[in-house]
């Protein structure tokens, strides 16, 4: 009767076949927990406290946001108010900026107006390429 001796082989290496499984497990964990940075928005720098600037009325253009979302334009000097459509705000401002690069776009929002309306107008003003923007609350 043939007696076969069993080979006693103990591997002294790290098992590499399961390495991939372990790595993938960790990988899936990090994949699911990852939140990518999706911060975007309209940036603005607020004026410091008690920093009231005297601005010549010539350098001002007001965009008045009404509670229902209508927008009126008023040039600094005149009292005349002119309604304007949302998508025209950028065009109006761009034309004004071409004539006077120092122009300050002042967005005066009615306290009762939805935040959304103000953001829409700010969006337009930003698109027109205005550098100097002021946010105000409309006083009655």
């Amino acid at each position: 009767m043939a007696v076969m001796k069993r080979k006693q082989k103990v591997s002294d290496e790290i098992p590499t076949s399961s390495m991939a499984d372990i790595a993938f497990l960790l990988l899936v964990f990090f994949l699911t927990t990852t939140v990518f940075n999706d911060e975007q928005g309209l940036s603005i720098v607020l004026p410091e406290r008690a920093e009231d600037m005297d601005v010549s009325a010539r350098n001002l253009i007001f965009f008045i946001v009404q509670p229902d979302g209508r927008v009126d334009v008023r040039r600094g000097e005149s009292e005349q108010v002119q309604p304007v459509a949302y998508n025209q705000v950028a065009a109006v401002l761009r034309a004004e900026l071409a004539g006077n690069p120092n122009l300050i776009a002042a967005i005066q929002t009615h306290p009762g107006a939805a935040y959304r309306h103000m953001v829409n107008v700010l969006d337009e003003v930003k698109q027109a390429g205005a550098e100097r923007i002021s946010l105000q609350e409309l006083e009655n």
Partner: protein
Amino acid sequence: MAIKDSGFKKKQGSDSGIPTSSMADIAFLLLIFFMVTTVFRTEKTRQIEWTEAESSQKLEEKRRDILHVWIERSGEVYINDQLVPIDQISDVIRPIYGDNRQLVIALRGDAQVSYDQINLIAEELQEAGSVRVTFATRMEQRANRARR
């Protein structure tokens, strides 16, 4: 006399299986990428209706330099998952700004919140001295824009 090619025939073994030995390397590479890019969520995402703007720009600031101020439709303000009364916002922001002068405030306001709320918060931020503000928005699609 020399025998050509040492007399051995070369084995022509073309393996048809996926090479598993490099699998771990690939997996680890991806793993390291995700480990490095992962930032764990630190605060609850609140239910707000996002405002949209076409000129939205990606913020270049690092995540730790951005502080979210959530304004829910009810007018409640949350900072770091804490409900903060409007008149105490400056007290909350001031120490945070004191620790980190690079701070940018990301205002995440509900689209329907009335503007006087936003104005009050802006005044509080001015009082705290933290004047770099972003009105957080979503990128607006052209099709939506025509409808507003």
